[in-house]
Structure formats: C-alpha cells, structure tokens
C-alpha cells in the first residue's frame, strides 16, 4: 500500500535524527504514540505531540515508561500503528513489556536513542551500549528486530521500514538510534506519499465465529493475521503461554509450540530481513564491522587505511538483530580478520566472533561519550595486520 498523504511531510528538510524519526513514523501511518521524556530522545515525543493532532492521531504523555510501553500495545490492539520512544533508563523500564509484545505478537516500534550508560551515565552523550539489551533485555526466549540508522535521512527511511517490519512480523521492532544520529541535523528528503510503500496490518480472511483462532497461521506462514478489536472476533490475548485460540495452556508442549514459533518467525527470516552495506570488501584483508553512527566513523578509518595501502573494507549491518549471519559467515571465509568498532566495551563483537568461527575478531571498543577517533580504529587494524 501507499502511505497516507496526511502523515507525509513531503519535501526537503534540514532535520535532526529525532525529528526525522518522528516523520518516518507518521509517514508509516503511526497515529498513536505514548511516551515519557528522556534525553536524548525527547525531541521525538515533542515533535510527535505537536504533529499527531494535525494528522488525525493522538499522543499522550504517560506517567512513566512502563505505562507508555504498554499503552502502545493497547493502542496497537485498538487498531493503530504505534510507537514509543525512550533512552537507556526508560528502555530498561520497558523490558517487561517488550516481552509482552513479543509474546502477544503485538506490532509496535520502540525507539531507543542510545546514550552512555550504565544507569544514568552520560545523559546527553552518545553510546551504542544497549545493543545486547535490545536482544536480551526481557526475560524468557524471544527475538526482536533491531535496526540501526546512521543519518537523519535513514532515521526517516528506516523508521518507516521498522513499522513495515513490525506489521509484517507482528513483533516489537527496536529502532536503535544513538545520540549522535538523533541529535545530528542533515538534509532529509521526504518523498511524496505515493512513493512510499507501507505495510498495512494483515486482517483475518475469515469472519468472526466460534471457530476463530487468534493465533492460527496460514499454511506456510509463522505469522498469524491480526483481527480488529470491536468487530466480533471476541479474541483473548494473554502473556501466558497460550494455544492457537489464545487461551492459556500450562504445559511444556504448548510452550514449545508457541515460543519456538515466536523465535523462529524472526530467526528463520534472517535472509529476508538482512540489510547491510558493504564498502570495498571485495579485496579486503580486514573488514571493519560497525553500525549506526560508528559506521560513518569507520569510513574514515577505512580511507586512512587504504591511503596507507592496507586492504580494508567495511561491513555495516543495518538490521543488526537478527544479525546478517549468512553474509558474515561468507565474509569470514575470505578475510583475515574482523575489526568490530562499536561505542561499547564489546557487544555485537561477540556475535561476530561467534559467527566468524575462528576467523580473528578484534574489538575496537569505546566506552561512549564521544565517537571513536578514526585513527584509533586504524591503529587496531594496523595491529591486527602486523
């Protein structure tokens, strides 16, 4: 489907990432948002509070992040495309509800504009240290999709994509910005509505009946269609382990059937979900792996390296979870080493190392609060190639 023109601010703008993210959400059809302010994500809710009433939507600032993270789920079942946004401390408070969304297959987008932690940390300064939390922060087995934009333009484009994926897979999508991208202002081109492809919620084909089963998937699919509320389906939604009807069933078989499907619908979709960029990997001895803002920094490191005659390329996962596993394993077979640059003390590097299956994997860490010096990353590359 094409985007609803009401929400699309077509034109060329000079926007920061937070604002562009908001515009991406509106273009995607988000018409309901709940939030609670926190640096450096506040601009997203501020803009959405301002914009939604003018496009037929509704925003409420809730009493906290816990309320926001579940209010959006109520709204999602109420038929809306929804988003909430926060940063580290607030995202940590949302963890129970991210699990709820995964368990109940509630499409929703959680924007995390990452700042440096742990705890209150450096509220105004950049980090990328919530990547593992995005994947593992709630209890129990589940999978999410996590996306890392590296520019305001991508904050627009990929927020829209995030909504599309949330609807397609009925899953929470973690939109993992970072403070640098969120607070960076650049040109953002917003196309006309009819150029924007938007995924609408898949409704059940069948009419309401006693036979209706909320979580019954069509053959070959792992994602059930989602009924509208208030139209007679009379479905039941629970965070308990449930059967196809949505009814609680308290045993290991039900657990296996349900949770395995929930996990598999994301894990096995890795090939479709994979999105990455590559630069000069073809002849590379060392591939720099980086995402979000750091994927821009390593570009300079790569240039510095190439200037020194070192064969260095860049691999940038755009969708970080599920990790573009297939491609990384391929690369692992032909490169000498990976250098993973991230604004943390070692997160995504663990996944790279695991997938590298013996190919040397080295971390260029940075505790956050600023970006890497491109030279520092170069140094790690040089050491690796020594």
């Amino acid at each position, binding site marked *: 489907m094409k985007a609803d023109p009401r929400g699309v601010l077509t034109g*060329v*703008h*000079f926007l*920061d990432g937070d604002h562009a993210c908001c515009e991406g959400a509106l273009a995607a059809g988000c018409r309901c948002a709940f939030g609670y302010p926190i*640096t*450096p994500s506040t601009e997203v809710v501020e803009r959405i509070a301002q914009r939604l009433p003018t496009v037929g939507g509704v925003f409420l600032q809730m009493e906290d992040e816990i309320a926001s993270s579940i209010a959006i789920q109520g709204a999602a079942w109420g038929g809306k495309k929804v988003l909430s946004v926060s940063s580290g401390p607030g995202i940590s408070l949302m963890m129970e509800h991210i699990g709820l969304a995964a368990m109940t297959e509630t499409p929703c987008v959680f924007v995390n504009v990452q700042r440096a932690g742990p705890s209150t940390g450096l*509220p*105004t*300064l950049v980090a990328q240290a919530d990547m593992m939390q995005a994947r593992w922060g709630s209890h129990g087995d589940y999978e999410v999709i996590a996306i890392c934009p590296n520019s305001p333009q991508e904050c627009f484009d990929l927020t829209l994509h995030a909504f599309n994926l949330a609807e397609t897979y009925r899953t929470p999508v973690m939109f993992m910005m970072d*403070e*640098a991208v969120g*607070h*960076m*202002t*650049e*040109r953002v081109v917003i196309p006309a509505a009819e150029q924007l492809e938007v995924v609408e919620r898949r409704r059940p084909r069948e009419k309401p009946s006693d036979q209706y089963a909320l979580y019954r998937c069509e053959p070959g699919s792992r994602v059930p269609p989602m009924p509208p509320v208030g139209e007679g389906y009379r479905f039941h939604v629970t965070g308990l382990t449930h059967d196809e009807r949505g009814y609680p069933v308290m045993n290991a078989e039900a657990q296996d059937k349900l949770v395995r499907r929930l996990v598999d619908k994301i894990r096995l979709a890795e090939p479709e979900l994979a999105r990455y960029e590559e630069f000069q990997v073809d002849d590379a001895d060392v591939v720099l792996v980086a995402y979000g*803002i750091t994927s*821009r*920094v390593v*570009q*300079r490191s790569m240039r510095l390296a190439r200037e020194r005659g070192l064969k260095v390329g860049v691999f940038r996962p755009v969708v970080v979870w599920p990790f573009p596993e297939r491609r990384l394993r391929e690369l692992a077979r032909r490169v000498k080493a990976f250098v993973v640059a991230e604004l943390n003390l070692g997160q995504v590097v663990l996944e790279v190392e695991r997938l590298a299956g013996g190919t040397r994997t080295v971390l260029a860490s940075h505790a956050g609060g600023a*970006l890497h010096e*491109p030279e520092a990353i170069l140094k790690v590359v040089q050491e690796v190639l020594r």
Partner: protein
Amino acid sequence: MSRTEIKIGGFGGQGVILAGMIIGRAAALHDDKDATLTQSFGPEARGGACSAQVVVSTERNLYPCVTAPDVLVVMSQPAYEQYVGGIRPDALVLYESSLVEPNGLPAGCRSFGIPATSFAEELGRRMVLNIVMLGFFAALCDVVSEGAIRQALAASVPKGTERLNLDAFTRGLDYGRALRAKGG
C-alpha cells in the same frame, strides 16, 4: 571533495545552536552542499560552554565530527578558551569582542572581532547577538553564500521577528564587510 569544519561556541542561551542551524540549513537546502550539524546538549547547555559544529562539504559527508575547525565563531571567553586549542593552524576566528579576549591565537590564524552584544542591544534585543554574529560570519567566510544564509535565516526565526533578525544580520554583515574591505 572540499570539506569545511565550522565550530560555534558560547554560553547556553546565546543562540549558538540556532546560528549553527541556520548555517547548516543554508548550506544543505539552499547552497546544495552537504551539511551536518552537531551540537552539545544537556544541563551543560544551561551554564558553561556550549557549541554547535557544522561540517559543510561538496560531497556526501560521512564523518560527522569537527576535529579541527576551519572556522571558529565564539561568543564567550570560556568557549574561546575551550575551543581555540583544537583549531587548524590557518583557521578563521570570529569573536564577540566585548566578551572575548582572543589571547594566544596561533600565528597562522586570521581573527576578527565584533561588538555584537552592543549592536544587538542597540537593536533593542540582546537575544539577536547570534544573528549579528551570523552576518559577521557571512561577510568573512565564503563557505556558505550570503543569499543562502538569508533564506535559511528567514525560515528559522519565529514569525514576527524576521525584520529584527534581518537587521541584526545586516548589521553584522556590514561590519564584517567593512573589516574585510580593510584587508581582512
């Protein structure tokens, strides 16, 4: 590819970010260049030194940080002191001359001062200090065209204040032009 790094510094509340925003927007939307604005945020922005950085380049600018400014615009002494160390040896330094004493400037730098606060106060609103500086910048730095800055300025200031801001801009511009004519 040509790349210019601009840093603007001052106290929080002096409109440092807005100045950066106008320069960036001018470059990105009206001069058809690539521009990246970054800034320092937070409680800091209320008291101490606060800054905006603009990278303007003719191609897609990947690396967003300002590491060694080509141009430094400063409106407070702490900002000057904090930032002057990092500038390029041949940088252009523009400063508010009643608030900043540009001591210890590297030899290769060109520097120009303007009593922008007084100009702004003369115009009736101290708040337009940043716009005076912007005009001054337009006069002395050619990275972004004056026309583009004027367009961006008009689009960036609150309705009803366009006149005042244009006056402030012109005041800074004229002062800068005069200096330049004198051989800046």
